[in-house]
């Protein structure tokens, strides 16, 4: 017989991993752009 609890836990885990990975990816991209913006702004000021 199928252990329904493990499938429920699996679904919640997979969904959480998808959303958390996306948030981390967005945060990482934003962090890199912010850094580049700071250095580009300083370069243009000079």
């Amino acid at each position, binding site marked *: 017989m199928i252990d329904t*609890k493990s499938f429920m836990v699996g679904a919640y885990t997979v969904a959480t991993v998808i959303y958390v990975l996306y948030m981390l990816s967005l945060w990482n991209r934003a962090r890199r752009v912010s850094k580049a913006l700071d250095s580009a702004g300083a370069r243009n000021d000079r």
Partner: protein
Amino acid sequence: MTTVPHGASAPKRDPQALVAKPIFDWFFVVGVLAMVALYVRSLMFTPPDALQGVAQKIYYIHIPAWLASYTAVGITALTSIVYLWLHDERADRLSEASAEIGLVFLTGGLSTGMFWGRVIWGAWWVWWDMRLTLTLFLWFVVAAYLVLRGAIEDEAMRARYSAVLAILAALLIPFIHLSVYLFSAGMHPMPIVLQPGKAKLSPQMLVTFLFGFVAFELFCVALIRARYRYGVKRDMLAALEIAGDTR
């Protein structure tokens, strides 16, 4: 010079103020907290279904994920229409942001549905179920939209072509929603909550179910806002780099 893959036009309306805003703000925190509350309520304070057992709890993150993806793809299509009409780059940027979030929720909806299907249907995937297959098709169209955006360098051409694809993608949504009525072959159940008469859910389940919609919509809008702000910063960087190169 650093290669910047996307648009090079500076954002309109006080760009410095827009760029200074953080990507993740208070609204994002509200969205994440709503999701955490949904997880806690569905897993700890909602009774399991008499027939499906705890596998039914997948519903609380599966169906709201679809609604969130429809919202995101719908916003993509609407802002695409606005772009084709007004040629405003902000509409194009919002369209791109919501398409990316739409793909995230489509992935979440598909993967959680597979777990439920394995328990209740006995199969991870059923190809002849029209709702399932059409949804996978929508996933590919939205993925193609993002690939298309990355493949075209000219800003105006990229925005125009992707806007057309976004509108076509959104046309799939009514078909997906009505597929359980239009096609007799299929495994997806008919609506349980949104039907005439009394909903066939206990009050506790119904509250969790409806709260799931609210939580996912909040989270969806929060992610679109964050992704839009990232787009503003990225385009500002591209504009600064071009300005620096032309000096």
